């Protein structure tokens, strides 16, 4: 047996594997997010008194639902670490704290993608009017991935702060929603043409660029701040 402090990526892989294993063993986060999404569609169906939605309304319904579902995942991101001392276990190891940021953001991204694999088709079945063609769906996947990356990074930052407070759920909502508003706006605007009644419109490059810029900005910010958030 030999020991050498692991590289950041190796440590991140260890934490990510642990996160996914825990979620597989006790799938609370994914189940909560998926149930929330499907319930929200039913609520929208009755609240809007419409059988189908399209265009910007459809985009709004989809992204409000996905963003609020993401809040559930963000709120639970560090819960097992707090309840079972896992955060201290990590802090005692000779590894770069950024490994935790990488692993947690990757775990949240995986949860978002997994939920959206269910939630987006469900949206298309339950609420969406004219469904886009194959090209439209591919473009939607691009928007989803760019938005998810931003949600994952910002969500990890917020979760790391919120878990150290007593009012974890309140802090998560209060901090995450304003920070995620640019993602919500850009993703909705980018998605609206895809759900247009006249057929899938062109993807607005401007909104994709905004999403990409947002991801980059918050990734850098998270990298710079995360050590201070998790250490004493």
């Amino acid at each position, binding site marked *: 047996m*030999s020991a*050498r402090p692991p590289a950041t990526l190796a*440590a991140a892989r260890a934490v990510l594997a642990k996160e996914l294993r825990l979620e597989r063993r006790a799938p609370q986060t994914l189940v909560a997010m998926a149930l929330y999404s499907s319930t929200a569609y039913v609520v929208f169906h009755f609240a809007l008194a419409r059988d189908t939605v399209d265009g910007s309304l459809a985009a709004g319904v989809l992204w409000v639902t996905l963003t609020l579902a993401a809040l559930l995942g963000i709120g639970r991101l560090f819960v097992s670490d707090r309840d079972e001392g*896992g955060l201290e276990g990590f802090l*005692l190891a000779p590894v770069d704290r950024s490994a935790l940021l990488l692993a947690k953001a990757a775990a949240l991204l995986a949860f978002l993608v997994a939920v959206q694999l269910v939630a987006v088709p469900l949206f298309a079945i339950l609420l969406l009017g004219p469904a886009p063609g194959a090209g439209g769906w591919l473009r939607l996947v691009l928007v989803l991935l760019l938005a998810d990356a931003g949600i994952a990074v910002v969500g990890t930052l917020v979760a790391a702060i919120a878990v150290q407070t007593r009012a974890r759920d309140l802090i998560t909502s209060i901090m995450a929603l304003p920070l995620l508003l640019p993602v919500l706006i850009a993703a909705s605007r980018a998605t609206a043409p895809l759900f247009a009644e006249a057929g899938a419109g062109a993807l607005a490059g401007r909104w994709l660029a905004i999403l990409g810029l947002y991801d980059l900005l918050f990734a850098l910010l998270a990298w710079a701040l995360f050590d201070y958030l998790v250490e004493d």
Partner: protein
Amino acid sequence: MAPEAPAEPSSAATPRAPAARRGARSPNPTGAQGAGGEPAHAIELDALVRRYGERAALDGVTLALPAGSTLVVFGPNGAGKSTLLRVLATLLRPTAGTARVLGCDVLREGWRVRGRIGFLGHEPLLYGDLSASENLAYHARLHGLRDASARIAELLERVGLASRSADRVHTFSRGMVQRLAVCRAVLHDPAVLLLDEPRANLDPAAAELVEPLVGRSSGRTRVVTSHDPVGGLAEGDLALGLRAGRQALLAPAADVRPAQVGELYR
């Protein structure tokens, strides 16, 4: 030779740290290296202060512990024992003063310290939904241990948990969880052990099982908190008594009577 500990501010006693059983070298207040390149003192505290807001949990603790020795820390609840361990473990930053572990400043060189300490606090730092061996494998990866499976199997065998290695930790009794936490703390073969009441939840047989790993016979430098004056003094080389964060007692354990320790609790 008995190295001299720094003067202790609040006690009438002039403490002298005992010679280490192994590897003790001359006093080293400046952090100078011993003959083998290792610092003579495994732990050096100089006017260490840690505050939580206005309240000082540690207030001016000063001592030097030779490598291979055991510091036993006494004090009533809230005296600062756990805070001291957490500062040494780099989980808390000192507010003032310095703390050095194996010659490394915990504030500036925390990353160097972490790989060389084993910390056993009140929480086991284990995931209930992972099995015993999965928990240890996870910590082994975080410590960069290669081929850790043999080490994990050996440790589980030594604490009597080999037959439960695949079971999830939430099915364990508190004593079993504590035994597994001991395995986690020594998994990477640390030079210094920081132990907060390590025998809590252990029956006598289980305490005997973990003794070679975290007890005096482990041969490691240890900082151990205790509420048991007789047992604590017996396993310590240097005794530290804390009261409201202040150093109320610092002396070689052999020179301290259990009644002196008892006074800390009055």
